[in-house]
């Protein structure tokens, strides 16, 4: 739950573009984001919203022809924009860790899993080879893999999907990072396994007291784990609020639409809202114009929507990018 | 039901390499076709008083160990080399493609068995088989063409087999079959058109292999029989005189190298533009 701690991560006007043969794509277009220590922030969006790109941009893992720029990018009091690459490498894995969506492709198929976990410690010179392996085995146990010592010598293809994802969680957690960025960590898993892995991740987060940026499209998960939620659409944050607020008083038509399309009969927050889907699809990133990007799918669009709506502050910590809430 | 074309990529702009390759190959082809007109002299005319001459005014590219004009022999050699290589590839296609398609339509066990045999053929180092066959079958251009064609038909059989199987499994083909489409119809309308691009690429690479094979065999004295000029044969003859004059042997060497290089560059470009999803 919210610690009310200082701001761990502070992002202003993050822009990530890709130069493709068809033109320049603005995958992330002016995102502001704050994450406090030990806070769980969920980044919600459909595919094509830029949410995965956002995660990679924060870690500086966007390669040419992509380019990342921002007005502010501060982590733990340090300015990441001017940080030399060697310093950035020291941050990665140790203070900011990442969990990827598909564990089978995220793990090196020809190296044993114990080795891959131990590697994090060795890269940051935190342990000798033997020590690192011991701690890796320890962590395998902590993420719920039985017979850890034997399993450490397995190759990724010998483990189940759930076990592989536990391994990537171990890799992320072993250095006790201050921030974990999880990019749809349960999406690629079987439904039965998803809950277990999610529980594990939340367990870790609480124990290590790390902040968690959880990227997902699953609103059910968001309701369970989030402290705060940021809704991403076509590369922009369209709404941001504490989780109770978002579910009780959604402000942006897109958020309302998303919530209405979740078939969650039992959630008390949701009763009374009719089920529906949002017509249309995410706009082509090459054809974005100056106006509100959601207006073609919005039931309440009007003339003012031809202009880009500003971010408007509603009550405490609740912001929305929509003309409907302007004065 | 219309046949769906395979991935129709926009052809990437031709880089400098492929353009040069096309121009060069066009020159070679023209030389081959119009040899009689273009050649300054008779390629077979011996001139003992002017052997192993460097390129000069009298003989633009020099002369060989019997005084024959090298430019003339290169031009006629182009005709021979292209003739042999192209014929061999055509033969290989003519045998291999129907075979591959045919095998794909047989039962499972026949398929597996036949492909195994073909795989063994493909893995054998071809030049040895060629040497043995040529030694016993005697010389002559026809034998050469047949031998090289036989060596390379398994490549086309394998490609045709694989393509046939994958095309047959495509949804619109399966639905055509369920609606009663016969085998010949499927082959004509679906399989052949969709195979064209892959076969074309395979043909270009096989062409370069065939030229290499012919040149190698002629170099050893087992290929094109003298006095008919062939680049490989010329290199084989002139190599003994390097210490007297190196220029004559360099001339056909460069020409052969440039030709094979051009075919390969074009083959790569063809591969990239027709089958972009495949890795080179």
């Amino acid at each position, binding site marked *: 739950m919210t610690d009310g701690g200082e701001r761990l991560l502070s992002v202003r006007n993050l822009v990530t573009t890709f130069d493709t043969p068809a033109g320049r794509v603005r995958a992330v277009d002016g995102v502001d984001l704050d994450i406090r220590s030990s806070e769980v922030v969920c980044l919600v969006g459909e595919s094509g919203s830029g949410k995965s790109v956002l995660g990679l941009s924060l870690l500086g*893992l966007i390669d040419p022809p992509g380019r990342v720029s921002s007005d502010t990018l501060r982590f733990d009091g340090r300015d990441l924009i001017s940080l030399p690459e060697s310093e950035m490498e020291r941050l990665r894995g140790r203070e900011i860790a990442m969990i990827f969506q598909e564990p089978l492709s995220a793990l090196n198929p*020809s190296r044993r899993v114990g080795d891959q976990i131990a590697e994090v410690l060795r890269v940051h010179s935190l342990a000798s080879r033997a020590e690192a392996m011991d701690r890796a085995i320890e962590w395998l146990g902590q993420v719920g893999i039985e017979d850890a010592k034997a399993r450490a010598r397995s190759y990724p293809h010998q483990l189940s999907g759930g076990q592989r994802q536990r391994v990537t969680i171990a890799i992320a957690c072993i250095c006790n990072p201050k921030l974990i960025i999880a990019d749809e960590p349960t999406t690629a898993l079987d439904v039965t396994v998803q809950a277990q892995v999610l529980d594990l991740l939340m367990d870790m987060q609480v124990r290590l007291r790390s902040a968690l940026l959880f990227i997902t499209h699953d609103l059910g998960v968001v309701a369970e784990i989030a402290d705060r939620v940021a809704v991403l659409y076509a590369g922009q944050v369209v709404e941001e609020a504490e989780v109770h607020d978002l579910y009780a008083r959604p402000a942006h038509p897109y958020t309302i639409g998303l919530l209405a399309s979740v078939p969650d009969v039992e959630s008390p927050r949701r009763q009374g809202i009719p089920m529906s889907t949002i017509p249309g699809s995410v706009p082509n990133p090459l054809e974005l114009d100056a106006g509100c990007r959601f207006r073609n799918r919005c039931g309440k669009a009007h003339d003012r929507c031809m202009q880009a709506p500003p971010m408007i502050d509603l009550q405490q910590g609740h912001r929305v990018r929509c003309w409907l809430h302007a004065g | 039901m219309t046949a769906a074309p395979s991935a129709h990529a926009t052809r990437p702009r031709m880089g400098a390499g492929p353009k040069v390759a096309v121009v060069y190959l066009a020159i070679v082809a023209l030389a081959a076709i119009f040899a009689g007109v273009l050649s300054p002299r008779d390629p077979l005319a011996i001139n003992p008083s002017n052997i192993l001459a460097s390129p000069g005014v009298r003989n633009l590219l020099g002369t060989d160990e019997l005084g024959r004009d090298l430019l003339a022999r290169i031009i006629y050699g182009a005709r021979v080399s292209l003739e042999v290589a192209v014929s061999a590839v055509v033969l290989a296609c003519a045998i291999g493609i129907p075979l591959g398609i045919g095998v794909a339509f047989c039962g499972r066990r026949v398929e597996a068995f036949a492909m195994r045999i073909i795989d*063994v053929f493909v893995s*054998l*180092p071809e030049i040895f088989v060629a040497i043995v066959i040529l030694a*016993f079958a005697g010389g002559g251009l026809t034998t050469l063409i047949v031998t090289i064609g036989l060596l390379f038909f398994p490549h086309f059989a394998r490609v045709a087999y694989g393509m046939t199987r994958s095309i047959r499994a495509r949804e619109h083909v399966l639905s055509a079959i369920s609606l009663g489409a016969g085998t010949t119809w499927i082959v004509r309308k679906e399989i052949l058109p969709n195979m064209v691009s892959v076969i074309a690429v395979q043909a270009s690479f096989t062409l370069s292999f065939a030229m290499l094979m012919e040149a190698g065999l002629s170099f050893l004295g*087992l290929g094109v029989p003298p006095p008919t000029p062939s680049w490989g044969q010329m290199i084989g003859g002139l190599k003994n005189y390097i210490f007297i004059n190196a220029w004559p*042997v360099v001339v056909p060497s460069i020409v052969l190298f440039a030709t*094979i290089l051009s075919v390969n560059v074009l083959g790569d470009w063809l591969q990239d533009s027709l089958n972009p999803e495949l*890795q080179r």
Partner: protein
Amino acid sequence: MLAYLGHRLVAAALTLTLAFAVVFAAIHLLPGDPVTMLLGEQAGADPEVVQKMRVRLGLDRPLIEQFASSLTGIATGDLGKSLRTGEPVFTDVIVRLPRSLELIAGGLSIAVLLGIPLGIAAAKGRGRFSGTAASVIAIAGFSAPVFVSGVILVIVFSLWLNLLPSSGFVEFADDPLMHLACLVLPATAIGINFMGVVARMTRASLADTMTKEYVRLARAKGLSRQAAVLYHALPNALVPVITIIGIRAGSLLGGTVIVEALFDWPGLSSMLVSAVFARDYPVIQGSLVAIFAVFVLIGLAIDICQGLVDPRTRETAA
């Protein structure tokens, strides 16, 4: 691992037998009677002499019998006697085998030592000058026929620079330095061509592997881009390269035919070629057996390497 090894050995033996059968069939079913050629012009005159010779050589027996005896002969190390010299083929083969192996080993080493870095440079420098330059060198090597590069090498190193001999052979035991000197040019000629193959495959494989997610994860762990490519991408990228080397090993062997002719290197291939010109059946057969044995052994060695490098292969094959 042992099960995998056993599996590959059996497969190798089977392939060898099959290949031998094919060769045997080819030799005996083709036109051209060795006996008449051997006896020359006299043969045409006296059919009795021809028949006697035929019996002496065992060529009158049914093909199956000949095949069976050839096969058993190979198994026991008896490859027959040369029709020209009467010497046992086996001794000649044993003497020449290492020489051809030297060429192949030398050529392969050069190809790998030059080709892999070239491929890496081409993959990493994609779109830039270094990458294009590396690609051009690779395709040039790949396209140059072995005898063309051989000829160029001779011109440059023997004629102009006078550094290395253009032909000839000396036993290693007699003069190691000279032996190596004679080996350099022919091995390089074979190597350059294969280098192109290796470079192209490495480039394609690495370009593909570099984009994989686990390389990105490695960077997310804190590895530098160089380290991620070197320790994660490259080892996996090399797996298909080893496969390709195995598949194309035949071309190395094929290259020896040309090179041994060009540089007067007395190996197995030159033995085969001269035997072919003379229609010396036993020598043809014996050298082909040896050549194919080398070929299969190379394939076996490649399989072993692949088993060591990629754990998944071991399991699927065993």
